[in-house]
């Protein structure tokens, strides 16, 4: 079914409005009063949300008649690069998938902008923060609505740049600047894979625009062929870099050095989901190589359980949330890996809501605790921060997968398709299921330690604990509503829902997949699905119960458990020493070899040595020749005679 392009000139404004406001703030920010800067920034993001909504409605009305016929809105600004066979122009495309993404990104960003106006009120470079934030939203929207891979790569690296700028926002502190650099470099390693994939795609399919790729791919790439797998795996390498999956996740926990709204926006809701969006956008390629999809699913599942284990013991409130983000992203990749693309995007949406809410809640807790982030020093905030507490509770329930909140529907959809889909496997389901339990445990551990029990904070901070201003609590409330209500849009048929989210995305995803879930459902009797749903609820409740038992009922048990298995606890506490391992096996060797072997020995030693050697040999020869001129006239005479002797010898010989 050849997708039809409908010209729609408002698309450019979705992307350009944050850019314009970023430039305005960057140039005039210093002089504008804070309120004006804040509102301008939030308004620009709101504007792009409105245009996104317009685009969404336009799409809905256009495709209202033919269910299968996939329509997308197109808008092209100008021709960027056209050399040889490659033509990459600055063009935007809004189909059903990117419409959802634009709405999620723009919506959550707008809410977080409003929140940051409150959170960053006292920061001295207020305007620089908002210009970076707007720049980030511009690049993210560019990434999501790009019409070709190259422009998407621009957005891809652009968000990497903004996360570098925002993580290292308080650059006076060397630690934070280091975290920013680490994030950019690890992202760059991912981009290396993405770049190679673009090259492979261009030289084999002859085009970089998505339309061209979808048309060419089935014809050129044979299913399961080495090339298709190579392309898919390289793309996945890019995705792991950006979405912090197993090998390249190390930058996300350190990225918490940035301001909390930044962590909420970039490292929970938007940037980290770019990897998932990219794979879903190129699902045609992935369906052509089952091996790659198996790898994606495996890595996703492993990351989910791995990050969940580390999350159990972290004491920094933001680190716990960071590891839970990595684990939830693992779920999304698991969903995408088993072919349930729409489930992946659905979880992405719901995760954006409740994880942003968790981060903002954590932000207001830190705000209240005047900057302290260690949950061991918190406790008993339930009474003092009612709004934060209730919204935080809603989000925790959602993430633990307790019905009827959104987390339950999206996570359950993933677990079910992990079990039922042809690409899926019961092992994936089991890992996912265990990780769900762990998630419930550490989330409620966090909740109990911060909000329940008696306050362990020192006297001084305890006086200053106060509820955050309404500018912060209102966004929390909005997100809480979304977190609670968001799930119904994707309620599966089994529970009587219309699962309109899945049907909304179906035409965009490869036709073969469209029939996937339906045929899979038929594959298993109705009862099995109910059992699965029940099982996932049970594991969630067990997690909560265990957390209640350990932290509320018997407060001392946590320490006892930690002492009982010191090695395990130490391992988890220091996040399996992964950073240290990377440092020892990669960073130090490279640094040492380049200092002593490449630079000192080779460059200065060998090459320069040879150059200077030639200089020294010439001077040496000069000195030897000089010894002949020793001032004795008779020595000169003898050299004459020597010459005569040689001459005669030569002549007579």
């Amino acid at each position, binding site marked *: 079914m050849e997708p039809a392009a409908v010209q729609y000139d408002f698309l450019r404004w979705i992307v350009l409005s944050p850019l314009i406001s970023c430039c305005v703030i960057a140039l005039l920010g210093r002089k504008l009063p804070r309120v004006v800067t804040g509102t301008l920034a939030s308004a620009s993001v709101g504007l792009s949300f409105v245009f996104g909504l317009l685009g969404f409605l336009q799409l809905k009305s256009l495709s209202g008649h033919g269910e299968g016929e996939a329509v997308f809105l197109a808008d092209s600004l*100008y*021709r*960027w*690069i*056209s*050399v*040889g*066979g*490659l033509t990459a122009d600055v063009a935007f495309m809004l189909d059903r998938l990117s419409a959802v993404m634009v709405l999620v990104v723009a919506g959550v960003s707008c809410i977080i902008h409003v929140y940051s106006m409150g959170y960053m009120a006292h920061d001295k470079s207020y305007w620089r923060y908002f210009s970076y934030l707007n720049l980030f939203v511009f690049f993210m929207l560019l990434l999501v609505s790009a019409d070709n891979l*190259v422009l998407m*790569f*621009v957005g*891809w*690296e*652009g968000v990497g*740049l903004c996360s*570098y700028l925002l993580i*290292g926002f308080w*650059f*006076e*502190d*060397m630690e934070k*600047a*280091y975290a*920013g*650099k680490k994030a*950019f*470099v690890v992202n*760059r*390693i991912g*981009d*290396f894979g993405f*770049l*190679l994939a673009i*090259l*492979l795609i*261009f*030289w084999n399919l002859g085009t970089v625009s998505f339309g061209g790729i979808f048309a060419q791919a089935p014809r050129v790439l044979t299913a399961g062929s080495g090339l298709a797998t190579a392309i898919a795996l390289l793309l996945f390498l890019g995705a792991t870099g950006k979405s912090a999956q197993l090998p390249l996740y190390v930058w996300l926990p350190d990225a918490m050095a940035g301001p909390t709204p930044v962590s909420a926006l970039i490292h929970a809701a938007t940037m980290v989901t770019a990897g998932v969006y990219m794979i879903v956008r190129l699902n045609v390629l992935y369906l052509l190589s089952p091996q790659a999809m198996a790898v994606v699913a495996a890595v996703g599942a492993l990351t989910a359980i791995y990050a969940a284990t580390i999350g159990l013991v972290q004491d920094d409130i933001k680190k716990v949330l960071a590891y839970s983000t990595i684990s939830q992203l693992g779920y999304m990749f698991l969903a995408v890996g088993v072919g349930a693309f729409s489930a992946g995007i659905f979880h992405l949406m719901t995760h954006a809501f409740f994880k942003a809410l968790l981060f903002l809640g954590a932000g207001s807790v830190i705000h209240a605790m005047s900057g302290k982030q260690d949950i061991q020093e918190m406790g008993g905030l339930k009474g003092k921060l009612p709004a934060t507490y209730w919204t935080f509770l809603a989000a925790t329930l959602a993430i633990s997968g307790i019905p009827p909140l959104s987390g339950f529907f999206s996570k359950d959809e993933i677990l079910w398709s992990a079990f039922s889909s042809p690409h899926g496997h019961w092992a994936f389901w089991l890992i996912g299921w265990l990780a769900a339990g762990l998630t419930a445990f550490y989330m409620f551990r966090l909740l109990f330690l911060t909000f329940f029990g008696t306050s362990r904070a020192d006297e001084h901070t305890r006086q200053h604990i106060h509820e955050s201003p309404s500018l912060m609590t209102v966004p929390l409330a909005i997100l809480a509503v979304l977190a609670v209500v968001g799930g119904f849009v994707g309620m599966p048929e089994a529970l009587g829902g219309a699962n309109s989210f899945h049907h909304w995305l179906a035409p965009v995803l490869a036709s073969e997949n469209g029939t996937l879930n339906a045929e899979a459902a038929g594959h298993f009797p109705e009862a099995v699905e109910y059992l699965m749903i029940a099982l996932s609820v049970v594991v969630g409740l067990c997690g909560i119960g265990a957390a209640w038992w350990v932290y509320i009922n018997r407060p001392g048990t946590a320490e006892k458990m930690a002492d009982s298995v010191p090695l395990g606890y130490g391992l988890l506490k220091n996040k399996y020493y992964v950073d240290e391992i990377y440092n020892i096996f990669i960073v130090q060797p*490279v*640094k040492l*070899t*380049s*200092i002593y072997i*490449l*630079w000192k020995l080779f*460059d200065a030693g060998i*090459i*320069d040595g040879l*150059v200077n050697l030639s200089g020294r040999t010439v001077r040496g020869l000069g000195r030897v020749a000089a010894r002949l001129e020793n001032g004795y006239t008779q020595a000169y005479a003898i050299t004459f005679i020597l010459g005569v002797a040689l001459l005669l010898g030569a002549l007579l010989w």
Partner: protein
Amino acid sequence: MTELSQSNILNWIVFLPLAGALLLFLLPGGSRAVLRWSALLVSTATFVVSLGLLCGFQTGEAGMQFVILKPWIESWGISYHVGIDGISLFLVLLTTFLSPVVVLSTWSAVKEKVKTFMILLLVLECGMLGAFVALDMVLFYLYWEVMLLPMYLLIGVWGHERRIYAAVKFILYTVAGSLLMLVGFIYLFWLGKQSLGYYTTDLLELYRVVVPYQAQFWLFLSFALAFAIKVPMFPFHTWLPDAHVEAPTAGSVILAAILLKMGTYGFIRFAMPLFPNASLAFTPLVMSLAVIGIIYGALVAMVQPDLKKLVAYSSVSHLGFVMLGLYSLTASGVVGGIYQMLNHGISTGALFLIVGLLYERRHTRLIDQFGGLSSRLPIFAFFFMIATLSSIGLPGLNGFVGEFLILLGTFGSAHPGYVYFAASGVILSAVYMLWMFRRVMFGPLENPENKNLTDLNLREILVMLPVTVMMFWMGLFPGAFLSRIEPSVQQFISQYHQKAAVAVQARAEEDRLAKTVEFSTLKEPAVSHE
């Protein structure tokens, strides 16, 4: 427009700086201001005239434009033959664009002997422009030598501590290479007589000379060595860090931005088209040296304590990319290579200007002397950030377009394997640049001397503004540049393969005729995707 292309605008562009130098010579050396303003005036005038070049340039036209052909020494067939095509157009513009910026940047840097400094700068500019437009081998060689002397004096006289060593090393390295080229050229000149029947040093006619195989091997070696030293390619690069560290700011900006391009320009204008078969045979070697250059340059740059040495090694890495692009022999690769030459000129020129600004304030280039400058010098931090991002090839800025096209072209070439290593250069460049940026700009402001640093004044902003604007313009709207470069590149590639094929047939006949002589089997020239 046509009368513009007939007019001798090229003579104007090349000889205006020379006239300016003479004018400066006559001016009294007393007041520095007069000298500086007149030098600025002359270089800006050259730039304005060169803009005329841009308007008169026919975009679709692949061959030489604005050609001026006047007999010079008939008996040897030497003629004053100048002209530009898509390849050399933007290099000329880069030179004229950067010269006023460089002159402006020397106002606070160069205190003594300003008169000779300005004269040398203008003579240097004339040499460079001449070399880019010369289409006659002897004329090119003349400008090539004219270019070296001022640079040697600039490093030798106004340099820093070890300037003599660096200047001598620079001149010896380059002159050794160019002498080899001269020998090669004379042999080619003689071969030209054999095959064309008359003596000529005109480049376009020498293109038609079918050079026998064995001769091509040695000739290419001699030309390639001369240009490889200039590029600098991997084993011949050790003069670059010394020359940069010791050169004054203006000197190292010109050296990095334009003089290095002489090497790569030499490859694409002389070494490759004159000896296609040998160049094809050498492609794996050149490409692997380029890739080694990329990774080696990046790794060594990472650990440099001296800021200027770091940027110098990063130039080795960037120019490794350019060579990779040129030798990929695909349209996008070569166009990317040429575009990357321009990008490197702009971004590394900007980086050296920035290092110069730092040096003027603190008189040191050691990275650990700085730290936390960003809070003291916000405007400086902005320019430094943009230059760093452009040099690591962030999309949206100029570096990315060049690097992306090169990687694309190399992937489509006969040796796609090199892309995987070259692409790692993308990561390494991010590592060393950002590591340096963090150590210099971020972190707490401990060093007492940094406490009272003053931010950029208006003049310094005027110096940095043009290059920064160019970075954005070349990154966001490369279409104008690429469309003008591509036709000449397409012609270059088709002529290249044509001539290679002709030489192969010629050799095949030789084989049949001289049954006894066994020629070394040369890899059949792989016809690439283009």
